[in-house]
Structure formats: C-alpha cells, structure tokens
C-alpha cells in the first residue's frame, strides 16, 4: 500500500465519521421526537455493550455472562465523581462527560482485570457462573452503599446543585459506538487480532505458537470491561438517575442474548443485534394492548406449528424431494402475506414513526427471507425449517384465536384479559434466544462479518469468492 493513498483513506474515514456525528447532533436528532431520540441513543448504547461483550465472548471465547456489572461500575463510578467534583459553570458539560468516560473506563477496566483472573483457571460454564457471581457481588455491594444511593437509586447531579443533570449528547453515544466497533474491527484486520481468535480456538496450540494466553485473555477482559464502563458513564449522564434495577442479572442475560443471537465472534452481528434487539421489543411498548385471545392464540398456533413442523422434518429427513420445495414455497407465501398484513396494519394505528419504520423493516426482512429461502434448502435446511415454522404460525394464528373465542370455557377465562404489548417483550426475547439456539446455534451471522457478498451467498445469488481475511 502506498503512503499517500493510505493517509487519504484513513483521514477521509475519520472526517466522514466526524461529519456524520456533526450532522447527527445538529440536523437529524432535532428532527426526531423525544421518544425516537431516546430509543436510538439507548439502542446505540446496547450496540456498544454487545460489541464489547463480543470481544470477550465471541472473539476470545471466554464465556462471560456478568457484563452488566462493568456497565454498572462505569455508571456508578462516573456518577459518583460528578456528584462530588463537578460544579456547574466551571467546566463545559461536554468536556466533563468526556472526562467521565475515562473515569468509567478505568474503573470498569480494573474490575475487568479482577474478573479476568479467574478466566486463567476456569473454562466454559464454570467461568460463566463465576462471572455471573461477580456481577451479583458488585450489585449487592453497591446496594449496601448509602453513598451510592443504595437500593433507592442515585441522582446524577453537580456538587453545587440538587438538580439532576443530563450532560450526554447524542454525538457522544454514536461516537463511542463507532469507536468501539472500529477498534474491534481494526484489531481483527491486523495480525494482532489473531491471538485472541487463537485462544478461542485452541489454547494449547496457541501457546505452542508463542501466544501469551494469559495476557491475551486478561487484555480481552480489560478492554471489553472498559468499553462497557464507557457506555455506563454515558448512560448515567444521559439518564440523570440510575438504579440497581437497570443493571440486574436480566440485563446481563439480555446483553449475552444479543451477542449470541447476532453470532458470537461477529462484530457486525453483535452491533446489529444490540441495536435492533433493543429497538424492536422496545417499540412494542407503543402498540395498543393485546387481547388474551391473541396472545394465547399465538402461543397455541406456535405449539401446533412446532409439532407439525417437527413431524414434517422427521418424515422428510432433510431429503430434497420436490414436495419439500413446494411445501416450503407454500409456507413462504403464507408467511409473506402475513408479514405484508402486519406491515400494512402498523401504518394504520397511532404509533411513533420509529416503531412503524422498525416494524416495517422487520416485516420486509421476514418477507425477503421467506421468498428467497427456498433457494437455500439444499444447504441450509435448518433455516428453511425456521421459515416453515414461521409460515405455519402465521397461518394458524387467526383460526386459533377464533377457536379460543368460540369455546365457552376459554372465552370465559380470556375475555377480560389483555396485555400491554410492552410486557410481552421479555418473553418474546427469551423465546427467540431459545429458538435461535435450537435452530442455528452459531447465531445469525456465525463467525462471519456482514457483507453484501455474504448476504448474496446466503440467498444463493451469484457472488464473489471471499478474499483473504487476515
């Protein structure tokens, strides 16, 4: 590579990022409503968290499931410093937040070092449980510190005023997400990323090739934790008020689920999963209440569909008879119609634009997947099977709802039950995690990075051969 071209691309990409952040802050964010802004900012924080955990979990292969603890340490340590040392009017707010990011990173990085040490002796599920235990210890200790607000929560305020301050701006959150993604991507683009991958693949062989496995693992933990701590610092100065509930075990599981669903080891997978898996369920909050008939009709349909689909898969046993193709195509058609109806419906009800756009994207994705999947059956039967299930569920839901409504016994029970759509997001999330594990254990992207060629290959379109990766 020649030097001028090198510097032009490097500086050019940095300039583009700066320009993007500037536009985001001054043009895009003001154009969106408060709620949409909030969703986007939290979504980007989750993307940061997922990418940082991916460095530990996916790239280095050290299964850690206590990531919310690092997030929490970053949030509380920076909030504590702000409460004691920040005076409004003395220093620009945004400069102070950037300093607090460093505080959060250092505090969480130290914690990451402490948690990284057990990883030298423990592997697999034992390490997972130890990190979980560490996360809970952090939470319980903070719960019992009155100076940190204990179980009541902590208001982030300046030392000279009792009011909560919210110093974080959208460009910082977006900038952090881009920074973390860029660091991870650059690491893997140079030979420096290979020791991390080698530790994941085979520790003994890695050390025989001269990789200092101890240092590699601890580095991954420190880096991942520091990134999460930075996100935590931005979070506490964004919310202005933090409580323990925002960092509990479920939160840790949520982040793990994002990494796993996105595909452990894939940076783009983790980032997209972090962003969208936060955004989509969260946008359910704005939907109208869902009746008990609909929820249980859906559950019933899912159970029936799963049973039927398992039977079909058993009978066909992955052979590619012409009948299978037709069956999948039929199911795909039903699924596409269902997705189209959902997309139509979402624009007819009163919900924020963000929700409409995200749900439409989801529907379109579903529909595209269904249309193209039949080309992939020979080499990805599992994926086709998922589509079959989805199609069956879509087809069966309405009849099942009618069934529940017409039987007097279920009608009596379900008639006056309705659920807030927002409350359905965690069950949906958990079910999705289990289903992804059962059908595609390597996650959406597996170890791959997202690229158009990869997408083309998945759908069986003509594509280039992948170039050298290292």
């Amino acid at each position: 590579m020649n030097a001028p071209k090198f510097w032009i691309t490097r500086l050019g990409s940095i300039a583009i990022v700066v320009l993007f952040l500037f536009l985001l802050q001054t043009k895009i964010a003001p154009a969106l409503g408060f709620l949409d802004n909030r969703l986007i900012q939290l979504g980007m924080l989750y993307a940061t968290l997922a990418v940082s955990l991916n460095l530990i979990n996916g790239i280095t292969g050290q299964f850690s499931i206590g990531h919310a603890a690092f997030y929490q340490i970053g949030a509380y340590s920076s909030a504590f410093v702000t409460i004691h040392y920040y005076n409004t009017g003395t220093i620009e707010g945004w400069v102070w937040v950037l300093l607090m990011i460093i505080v959060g990173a250092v505090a969480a990085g130290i914690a990451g070092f402490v948690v990284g040490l057990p990883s030298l002796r423990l592997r697999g599920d034992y390490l997972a449980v130890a990190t979980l235990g560490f996360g809970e210890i952090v939470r319980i200790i903070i719960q019992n510190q009155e100076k940190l607000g204990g179980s009541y929560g902590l208001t982030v305020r300046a030392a000279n005023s009792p009011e909560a301050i919210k110093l974080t701006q959208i460009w910082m959150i977006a900038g952090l997400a881009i920074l973390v993604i860029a660091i991870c991507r650059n690491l893997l683009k140079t030979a420096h990323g290979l020791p991390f991958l080698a530790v994941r693949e085979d520790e003994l062989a890695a050390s025989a090739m001269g990789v200092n496995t101890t240092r590699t693992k601890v580095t991954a933990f420190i880096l991942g934790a520091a990134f999460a701590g930075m996100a935590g610092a931005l979070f506490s100065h964004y919310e202005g008020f933090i409580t323990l509930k925002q960092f509990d075990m479920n939160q840790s599981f949520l982040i793990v689920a994002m990494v796993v669903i996105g595909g452990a080891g894939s940076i783009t997978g983790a980032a997209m999963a972090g962003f969208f898996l936060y955004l989509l369920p969260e946008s359910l909050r704005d939907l109208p209440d869902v009746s008990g008939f609909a929820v249980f009709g859906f559950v019933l349909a899912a159970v029936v569909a799963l049973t039927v689909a398992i039977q079909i898969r058993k009978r066909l046993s992955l052979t590619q008879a012409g009948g299978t193709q037709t069956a999948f195509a039929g199911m795909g058609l039903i699924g596409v119609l269902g997705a189209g109806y959902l997309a139509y419906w979402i624009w007819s009800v009163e919900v924020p634009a963000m929700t409409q756009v995200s749900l439409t994207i989801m529907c379109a994705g579903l529909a595209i997947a269904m249309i193209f999947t039949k080309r992939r059956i020979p080499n990805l039967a599992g994926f086709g099977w998922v589509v079959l299930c989805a199609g069956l569920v879509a087809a069966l839901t309405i009849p099942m709802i009618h069934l529940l409504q017409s039987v007097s016994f279920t009608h009596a029970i379900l008639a006056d039950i309705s659920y807030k759509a927002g409350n359905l997001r965690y069950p949906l999330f958990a079910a999705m995690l289990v289903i992804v594990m059962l059908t595609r254990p390597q996650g959406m992207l597996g170890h791959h990075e997202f690229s158009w060629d990869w997408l083309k290959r998945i759908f069986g379109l003509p594509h280039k051969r992948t170039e050298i990766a290292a």
Partner: protein
Amino acid sequence: MIARQHRVALAIGVVGVFLLLSLLFGWFPIMWEWIRSRNWGLLDQQIINGIQLGSIYALIALGYTMVYGVLRLINFAHGEVYMVGAFVAYYVAEVWFEKNSISPWLLLLMMIVGSMVVCSALGVTIERLAYRPLRSAPRISILITAIGVSLFLQQSLLLVFRTAPPPSISETVNPFRTIKVDLPVFGELIFSGGQLAMFGVSVVLMIMLWYVVSFTKIGRAMRAVSHDFNTAALMGIDVNRVVTVTFIIGSALAGAAAMMNATALGTPLKTDYGLLPGVKAFVAAVLGGIGNIPGAVLGGFLMGVAELLVVWIGQDLYKDAVAFVILILVLMFKPTGLLGTTAVEKA
C-alpha cells in the same frame, strides 16, 4: 556466614514472632471485645436454623447435581422449576382450602404432591423441548438455552401470575407454622412445628433418593451414565430414559422444597421467587462437588449455615452475597468441590 536458606528461615521466624506478638497485644483485645459482644445465645439457634434452611438448599442442589452428573449441563431453569412449585402449592391451597374444610394434614400432603408432580412434568418438558435437541451441540449453546428457558419461564409466567400484591400462602393453611416446639435437650432452642416437619420431610426424601440411586436398576443406570455417557449408551442403557428419570427426580425434589419453603415462610410469591434460592443451591452443588450426590447435601447444609452465620454476625445485608463469594472461592481454589471428583473442564 550462615547459609542462604538458613538466613531466609531466620527472617521468616523473626517476622513470624513479631506478627504473632502484634496479633496477641494489638488485635487480640479487639477481637476479644468483638467476640464478647456477639450474642452467643443466638449462635446455636442460628446454626440449627441454618441446617434447616440448608435442607431446602440441599433438595434443590440435588436437582442441579444430578442433571450435571448425567448431562454435564448447568440447568439454569431449575430455579424456575422451583418457583413454579411454589405457585402450584399456592393454587392448590387456594382452590381446596376455601371450598372444602379438609384436614390440614391432607391439604399439605396434596400441596406437596401437587408441586412435585407439576414440577416433574415441567422438568421433563423442558428437557424434551430445549435440551434434548442440543445434546450433541457445544456445551455453551446448551448453557445459553438453559438461560433462555429460565428467562422465558420467569417473564412469561409474570404475565400469567400477575396479581398485585403478590400472593402468599396464608398461615391458616399451615397450622404447624405457629406451633412452637421447645427442645429441652439442647437448652432453649425453639422451632416452629413447620420447621421440624420440613427438616424431617427433607431427610426422608434424601434417604429415598439415596435408596433409589444405590439399590435400584435405574439408579445403577444413572450412575453408569454419569460416569460415561457414551459408553453407557453403547452398553445398552437407554440413556434417554435415564435422563428423563433424572429430570423427574430432580424437579420433584425442587417442587417439594418449594412447597415447604413457601408454606413455612409465607413469602410473597413473585416469578423471581426461584432466582436466589436457585443460584444458592447451585453454589451448594458446586461447593459439595458438582455431580456428586452426597456432596450436594453437604454443600446445601454448609450453604444454609454460612448464610445464617452472616446474619448472626450482623451483616444480614450481605447474606445474599456470601453465596457468590463462596462460589468464586471454591472455583478458584478447589474447583472439584469438597467431595467431588469431576474435574473442571480442561482445554
């Protein structure tokens, strides 16, 4: 000139004597004051309470350890099975207590049987739907699935059992809760009748389990499978049946523990009811040596005693943290646990 190792020994000796002296004259009075200020009268009571609490942890821990022994899987959903057991007990009491004035003995029996049956069914269902398809998958995928199942049960049951305030099993259901029993043999120890009954039932269940594992055909098959899954399968043992039976027994024990704990304490039942007991029982299983059945019982008792000792010291805010501290210490220094032989997964 003294040889090098002698000089080192001398230095260690001098420092040691100095430390000992400073300990005696500096720390000893403080420690003595602390020791004197404790309420020693409560210690034996707390230890006994700890053993009783430990019997509950032991019952749950048995489920973890048996499943781990057979499948090498940390069944994260076990705590949720426990939670469901408590809810089943509550609903059985709710339905039968209001309508029929049956004897409390019969009612309690129905509650415990109901919990055990429903929990067994739930455990087997979870294994069938979520774990069996993944049996040859990497262990981390199964672990994630277990976490997913646990989250799913917790969050979806939140939609179903969403009465506010959270329900609890009333005192009237369990008359034994209020009966105080004084044990003169041990001085002034006081129990509720319920506590004694709980301990008794737990011990009976453990003895039954011991009998099943040691002396029956299926017990022998279970031991063989936990020794070597693949070889056992090759030797003609129906491993699927063994796994199913393991989940039935483990979940039933958790159901019994849940019913007893919920009835005796009357804690408000929420869907995260199983989270902490589940984690603590898991720690108990690790402490005793995961995969080892007597180890789980020992670990359960130690766990219960340790928790109440923390309360006795006066740090009851930290009583939940002690489990995790024990966990990390065990994993760091003796990963096989106290009685275990199963080595921690190596490279």
